[in-house]
């Protein structure tokens, strides 16, 4: 990226509607940088606290951040373009690679869009299984966030404790999907396979100890005076500003806006579960931290309720053979099954030439999918609006006026994943 010089002709334009000024959106450093009064400093893309490959160009007055220009795109892998060239079901494996800390959420949002586009049913039991997986993914993602966030600020041991718990979740993912990270477990119409017996056992033992482990993390951080000094009053974003900038998820709730898609516009049967939505009030780094800690307890509650409702045997994928391939065992018995199997794995299913839009609450915020069919077996366009993308765009609002060391705390607190941002 090269610096853009300030354009004199646009300086007199008055923004009329929105209370902020367009000037600050321009992606420019101030004129003081050209006289050498302020210093330009490049941070990243290979910087351990940027959580991937985020580059920020900082304009500094001493230690204080005057301006901040995020530069993304280093992890752009053309996932949206690639999905346009694949059949619908084969696109699911690519969505894992976006937000690699919450693969199930990406699978789920894409499957939800396909199901809406072709009007495919999902059995009740599969919806409950999906909720269990989604909440496990949420805990998984929050654990990585907690570990790295604390590590960035010098609290090394939290990272190790958090990763012990995360390892248990990854093993459970391997039990159900055969993969630890890139699960591709959700498929259009349900999930890939039924839960295994060892998964139930592992999940039970995990749920029985996990809340006490979160208590342990809290003992290390929540009332720790060093942690409080580093996080309270840092990176404040007002609720109105956060909404205008499209901030969502725990980062929005940290500012006290009660908006959780699982509660407000439920999907996949979330309205049947009892859980609370933790809210902050100051909108600073500490509130965003504490909300994610509390969300882990809530996720455990949801999984426990879901396990109670989940029958051990039953359908885990839709029976609609026009969209869902038959189980392997049926191929030896039924000619119809052979035909469906052949059609679905060679040609794929067709979807109408129309558009749908779905949004789900991912661990980071509102993840939404815009899917446009062609009438054929491949999509015309798929677009993921990812929370990390919006949060990085809003980063300058939170960081101006803070010290450069606080920027590390702010980057951690908005929980960005660059694979999610760049797609």
């Amino acid at each position, binding site marked *: *990226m*090269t610096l*853009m*010089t300030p354009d004199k002709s*646009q300086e007199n334009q008055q*923004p*009329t*509607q*929105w209370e*902020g000024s*367009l*000037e600050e*959106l*321009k*992606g420019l450093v101030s004129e003081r940088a050209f006289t050498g009064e302020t210093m330009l400093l490049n941070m990243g893309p290979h910087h351990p606290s940027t959580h991937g490959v985020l580059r920020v160009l900082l304009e500094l007055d001493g230690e204080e951040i005057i301006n901040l220009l995020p530069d*993304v*795109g280093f992890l*752009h892998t*053309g996932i*949206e*373009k*690639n999905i*346009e*060239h694949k059949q619908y079901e084969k696109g699911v494996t690519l969505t894992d690679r976006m937000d690699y800390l919450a693969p199930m959420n990406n699978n789920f949002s894409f499957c939800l869009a396909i199901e*809406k*586009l072709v*009007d495919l049913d999902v059995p009740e039991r599969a919806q409950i299984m999906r909720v269990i997986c989604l909440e496990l993914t949420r805990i998984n993602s929050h654990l990585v966030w907690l570990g790295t966030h604390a590590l960035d600020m010098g609290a090394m041991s939290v990272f190790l404790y958090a990763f012990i718990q995360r390892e248990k979740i990854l093993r459970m993912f391997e039990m159900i999907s055969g993969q630890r990270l890139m699960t591709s477990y959700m498929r259009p119409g349900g999930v890939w396979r039924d839960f295994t017996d060892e998964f139930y056992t592992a999940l039970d033992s995990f749920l029985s100890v996990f809340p006490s482990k979160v208590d342990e993390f809290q003992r290390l951080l929540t009332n720790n005076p060093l942690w409080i000094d580093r996080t309270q009053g840092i990176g404040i974003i007002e609720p109105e500003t956060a*909404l*205008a*900038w*499209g901030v969502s998820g725990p980062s929005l709730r940290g500012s006290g*806006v009660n*908006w959780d898609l699982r509660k*407000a*516009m439920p999907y996949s049967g979330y309205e049947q579960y009892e859980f609370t939505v933790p809210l902050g009030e100051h909108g600073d780094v500490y509130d965003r931290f504490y909300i994610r800690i509390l969300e882990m307890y809530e996720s455990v509650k949801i999984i426990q309720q879901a396990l109670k409702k989940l029958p051990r045997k039953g359908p885990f994928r839709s029976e609609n053979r026009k969209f869902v391939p038959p189980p392997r065992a049926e191929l030896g018995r039924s000619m119809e099954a052979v035909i469906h199997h052949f059609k679905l794995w060679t040609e794929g299913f067709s979807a109408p*030439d*129309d*558009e*749908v*839009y779905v*949004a789900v609450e991912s661990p980071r915020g*509102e993840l*939404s999918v*815009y899917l*446009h069919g*062609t009438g054929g077996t491949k999509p*015309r*366009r798929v*677009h993921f*609006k990812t929370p990390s*993308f*919006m949060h*990085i*765009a*809003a980063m300058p609002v939170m960081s101006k006026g803070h010290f450069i060391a606080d920027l590390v705390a702010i980057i951690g607190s908005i929980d960005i994943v660059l694979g999610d941002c*760049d*797609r």
Partner: protein
Amino acid sequence: MSLPQPKDPVESVKAALPTAVLDVTAFRGDTTLVVAPEQIVAVCKYLRDTPGLVYNFLSDISAVDYYPEYNRPGRFGVVYHLLSMLYKRRITLKTYVQEEEPVLDSVVSVWPAANWLEREIIDMMGIDFNGNPDKRRVLMPADWNGHPHRRDYPLGYETIMFSFNVEEIMKHKPKATE
């Protein structure tokens, strides 16, 4: 606290801005307003500020390319997804942009969140937004040729740069902009 009664967004927009709404479509329970391109900022502002509608949150802006079928009023569609947190509902605005002049007005003055979403479309789809303050490429490198999400842009087939063909490749690469 009593909320103002929710209004029907389609009827309200039609009444307030009679020339703006070209068409209304519904698919799988979602309502889409097809809006005249020159009126998009006015419609967005109306939907955001009117009591009873209050679409205060911009969820997404995405663009779709209808090449090679051209079965819509324009080659490109730009789709705005708005969310009303107060009334817990969404609405979709859609505008069609012509191939010859892919330009729209920017809604950054309504929601600053639109800034990066529009930058992504400028970058990936090659649709320009009048009034967007920051039009640099966001995902692709600054010296990239073409707009990858257009349907006539091939998938892959970029020549790999080696020492024997580096000069040949650099010859037709555009120079980095200022």
